[in-house]
């Protein structure tokens, strides 16, 4: 277990190193920090003096070292637009994005497993055929179009659900603002969650179906039938547990895509999350904010991937976490 974490930590460090290097080079190249600070009306000589004083003429490694040192202390610079620490600005928006992802993940998990399993067990039933047809249409519609269609149908046409924002939120522990505890917040969450899950859900239904159909052909399933086990046990324990292994792996690979989809979803629904903020930061060339977003997303990415590996190790006994080859 310890070896697993050491191994994982090594990978995490590599990923974070790449992100920090990328972030730093953005900081170096995007706009001129001097102009942001003092404006245009300063003479060239004074500029040079200021550059020297700020250490902008130092060798790359020194500057990167300083950047890293400050970053480790949580100081990623002040946002040009908000005039506040960029990390703080991003973290305020984190709950909104997390709740959106939570909503979508719940929809995906609660629907893809039963539907995928049903389609694998009854591949010839009309429902399975319908699901296969619907799911291929589902994966062919871009997330942002699903989002627009949902707004058009449920907000504009039917007027049932709100089309933008988080609605009413409650401040709970440590500045964490949640929309999960108010009816209005949940109503606002519904459409964005559906939109965010709209490509992953059919993708996982198809994946679970095909993996499970393959598992059902295995000798150990035939042996389970020959042993006279109840079919529920064969399907939902013997077959499903083996089906989940590749599904978990794919789930891990999809985390990055999920984060990208939050940007699209948040833009359409004007959901006040990190992705929406990131797009604004890009438009305003708010470099510290862009960097803060990249670093936070990188951290989330590393943590979730570690979690996925841990879960995989728990389900698959042939993976030894202790040997560090997970």
């Amino acid at each position, binding site marked *: 277990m310890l070896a697993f974490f050491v191994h994982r930590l090594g990978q995490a460090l590599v990923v974070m190193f790449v992100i920090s290097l990328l972030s730093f080079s953005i900081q170096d190249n995007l706009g001129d920090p001097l102009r942001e600070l003092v404006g245009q009306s300063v003479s060239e000589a004074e500029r040079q003096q200021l550059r020297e004083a700020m250490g902008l003429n130092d060798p790359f490694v020194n500057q990167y070292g300083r950047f890293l040192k400050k970053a480790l202390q949580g100081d990623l610079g002040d946002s040009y637009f908000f005039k506040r620490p960029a990390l703080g600005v991003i973290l305020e928006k984190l709950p909104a994005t997390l709740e959106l992802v939570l909503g979508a993940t719940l929809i995906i998990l609660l629907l893809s497993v039963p539907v995928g399993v049903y389609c694998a067990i009854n591949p010839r039933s009309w429902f399975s055929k319908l699901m296969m047809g619907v799911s291929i249409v589902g994966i062919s519609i871009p997330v942002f179009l699903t989002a627009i269609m949902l707004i058009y149908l449920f907000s504009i046409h039917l007027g049932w659900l709100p089309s933008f924002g988080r609605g009413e939120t409650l401040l709970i522990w440590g500045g964490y603002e949640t929309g999960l505890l108010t009816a209005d917040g949940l109503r606002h969450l519904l459409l964005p969650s559906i939109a965010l899950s709209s490509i992953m859900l059919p993708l996982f239904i198809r994946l679970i179906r095909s993996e499970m159909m393959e598992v059902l*052909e*295995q*000798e*150990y399933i*035939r*042996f*389970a*039938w*020959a*042993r*006279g*086990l*109840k*079919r529920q*046990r064969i399907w939902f*324990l*013997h077959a499903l*547990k*083996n089906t989940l*292994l590749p599904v978990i792996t794919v789930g891990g690979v999809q985390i990055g895509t999920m984060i990208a989809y939050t940007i699209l979803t948040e833009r359409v629904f004007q959901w006040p999350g990190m992705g929406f903020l990131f797009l604004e930061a890009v438009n305003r060339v708010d470099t510290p904010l862009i960097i803060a977003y990249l670093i936070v997303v990188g951290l989330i990415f590393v943590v979730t991937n570690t979690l996925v590996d841990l879960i995989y190790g728990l*389900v*698959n*006994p*042939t993976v030894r976490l202790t040997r560090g080859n997970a």
Partner: protein
Amino acid sequence: MALLEVRNLEVKFPLRQGELTALRDVSFSLDPGERLGIVGESGAGKSVAAFAILNLIGRPGYIAGGQVLFEGRDLSRLSATELRHIRGNRISMIFQDPMMTLNPVLTIGTQMIESLQAHRAISYTEARTLAIEKLRTVSIPSPDARIDQYPHELSGGMRQRVVIAIALLTDPTIIIADEPTTALDVTIQAEIMELLLALCENFSVALILITHDLGVVAQVTQRAIVMYAGRIVEEGATRSIIDSARHPYTQGLINALPERTRPGERLNQIPGLMPSLLDIPAGCAFHPRCPHTLTVCRFEVPDYSGSAQRRVACHWAGAHGEVL
């Protein structure tokens, strides 16, 4: 009355290229405690016959005709629930490849205990005690530690012992073993086969042994059936079949045994290959490979001659052989 009686069993597989008949007109019976061998090359339909008994033929195959009477009840017509109470309870199976037979993500204990609990109303602790006891019966060292291990932690031979222990768990009346040693190392094969034989004798369980190895049949079984292209071609007491085979195919199999060849001599192989079941030759299916082909063999499927206990389906044997 026979314990198991298979009557005119026919199994078909609808495929894209047409319907394939994997078994035709297969009849045999098994007495309590008897050990029966089913012999043939791969593709002869012997595995299909084994799985058809428990109605376990893989999709898209199905039983197209005939009966499988177990204690007077036709297994091919039972409901799923009724059949479940027979499978793994009264009739157990042992599969070919122990590496593939056990579920890789469940411990051996889980798989043994669930087998017991599927057929007996017993507690988890009782089931576990029984499972450990059965592991000891099949000579697995330190069974109380092994029971909590996963299949991949055991060697192939050990895994097949576990599979045998699972088959014995519910004290079945019949065990069907489908090539139980083929996938194992040669050194372990004899060990496992001796274990199986000893257990069947000790617990007086009837055994149907599917194999391509006539040597094993001679060693383990009392009666034998030889299959070719989905059909039984010869049946009789194992001794009688080995000593005085009637069908040219059986004779070929016996001549091909390594023991029948002197060192340095070439092995006596039957020329040609088993036909594809999609393209079975007209008349006797064996005639293109047969050293004694008569004109009639090309056109007419031979009937059985002899008694129910000692029969052969061959025009040549019928015409030339002494009375069975």
